[in-house]
């Protein structure tokens, strides 16, 4: 997940950037933007502050109680990156908060910020103009599935403008991220542009990287899993990617244009590189082993190398497969008659060589 919460008073005050939603101070539980969150009470206050700064900092929620916290439900335990902006664009206010893994504090913030300044998750203070490009995260491996932002003081007002949670291990529209899932789970890295992402799944899970343009992605899946790279826009595709699948898994790279992709599968798996009819596959490597199938299909296949072993099948399909290797089996299997003929041929060659050597020695002795 990659969900940011923008705290303010009015939902339509600003337009939330992609991957973020709002909290107006509503009590838990609220579900929006793919996450469930909310305040431990509806006795919190909120304000709209400015539409001329980053929309994530446009408003605030403020509290003054050590019994009030903002709860954010995580999809699973694991490692998450937490970003925040404690501060108020309009006036000086307190920053007395703690970040908690349910009841365990893992970051404490003290002091206050002056108007127009915001404290990030590393306690650095930036202006509203500098916070978007400079704010730092704190990373925490959560033992629970509850993140809490807990107010830590009853003196003065303590403000929060933005909270963002990324994990477990990333995804979304960020430039790099990791997603993993286990069991019957799904790991999805999705965004307009994924310049780097990694996703893995085990069990009956699925790992997916989907976006208008995927510059680089690595996905692996095991068990009854699926790993998929999918460029959804016809104008873009998968520039490079590596996929591997094991067990009864499927590894697929699908896009209008696949510049480079490698897919491998083992067991009863399927590996596929598929360029749509408006695009093609410039280069790709596919390998499969066991009862697997490796397929490279596209309007144009400039170069593709495929290998299969065991009872596998490797196929290159395209209107113009100008340089696709002939699918071959590499498991060393040959008919008994061929093996016997080769063995006889080797034996004959050995006998001829031995006779020639003896003949040479006799000639020298004579």
């Amino acid at each position, binding site marked *: 997940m990659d969900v940011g919460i923008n705290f303010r008073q009015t939902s339509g005050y600003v337009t939330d950037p992609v991957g973020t939603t709002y909290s107006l101070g509503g009590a838990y539980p609220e*579900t929006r933007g793919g996450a469930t969150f909310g305040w431990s009470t509806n006795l919190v206050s909120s304000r709209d502050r400015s539409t001329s700064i980053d929309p994530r900092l446009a408003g605030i929620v403020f509290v003054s109680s050590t019994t009030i916290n903002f709860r954010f*439900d995580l999809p699973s335990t694991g490692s998450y990156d937490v970003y925040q902006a404690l501060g108020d664009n309009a006036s000086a206010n307190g920053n007395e908060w703690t970040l908690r893994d349910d009841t365990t504090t893992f970051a404490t913030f003290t002091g206050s910020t002056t108007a127009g300044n915001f404290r990030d998750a590393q306690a650095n203070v930036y202006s509203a103009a500098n916070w978007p490009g400079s704010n730092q995260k704190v990373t925490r491996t959560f033992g629970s599935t509850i993140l809490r932002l807990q107010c830590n003081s009853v003196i003065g007002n303590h403000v929060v403008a933005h909270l963002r949670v990324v994990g477990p291990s990333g995804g979304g*529209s960020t430039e790099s991220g990791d997603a993993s899932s286990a069991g019957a789970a799904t790991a999805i890295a*999705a*965004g307009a542009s994924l310049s780097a992402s990694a996703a893995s799944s085990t069990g009956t899970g699925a790992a997916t990287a989907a*976006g208008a343009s995927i510059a680089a992605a690595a996905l692996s899946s095991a068990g009854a899993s699926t790993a998929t790279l*999918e460029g959804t826009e016809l104008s873009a595709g998968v520039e490079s990617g590596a996929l591997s699948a094991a067990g009864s898994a499927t590894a697929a790279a699908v896009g209008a244009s696949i510049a480079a992709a490698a897919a491998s599968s083992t067991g009863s798996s399927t590996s596929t590189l598929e360029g749509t009819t408006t695009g093609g596959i410039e280069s790709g490597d596919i390998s499969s082993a066991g009862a697997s199938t490796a397929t490279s299909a596209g309007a144009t296949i400039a170069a593709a190398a495929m290998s299969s072993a065991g009872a596998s099948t490797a196929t290159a399909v395209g209107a113009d497969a100008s340089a696709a290797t002939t699918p071959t089996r590499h498991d060393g299997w040959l008919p008994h008659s061929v093996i016997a003929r080769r063995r006889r041929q080797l034996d004959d060659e050995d006998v001829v060589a031995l006779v020639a050597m003896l003949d040479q020695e006799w000639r020298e002795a004579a």
Partner: protein
Amino acid sequence: MAITINSLQKRRIINQIETNLVQLQRDIRTNALSYKARAQAQSLPLARLQAEITADASEYLRRLQWVIDLRADAGKRQRLLDMLATAGWSEQEIVTYVTELRDVAVGQRDANISTYTRIANVSDAIVTAVDPVDSLWPE
């Protein structure tokens, strides 16, 4: 020494069920309107919107499961029944409410949302199925 479970504690569960289900009805409808608006504007990458819709449906079902789990606990269920009887409400009202919301959540989870147009259509169906929550004042 254990604290005796009293009517205040029992009533808290009733309040939480009410908050959860009423707020969930509001969330499902409001989110569907948001999906439709963003699908029509195509202001969000399709994959991102699809992921959000799926994640929201999963969260709806998780929230409904809290009620289902409570009823599966014999002791907690009896305390719930005691309080419902005091208030003059029936358990069936809660069951029906959960079932109706769950049907919508499952429908959203399993819906064909492969294009912006399909998302807009699914959103319309959700909005039709889920009325606004009654309110004394305009919301």
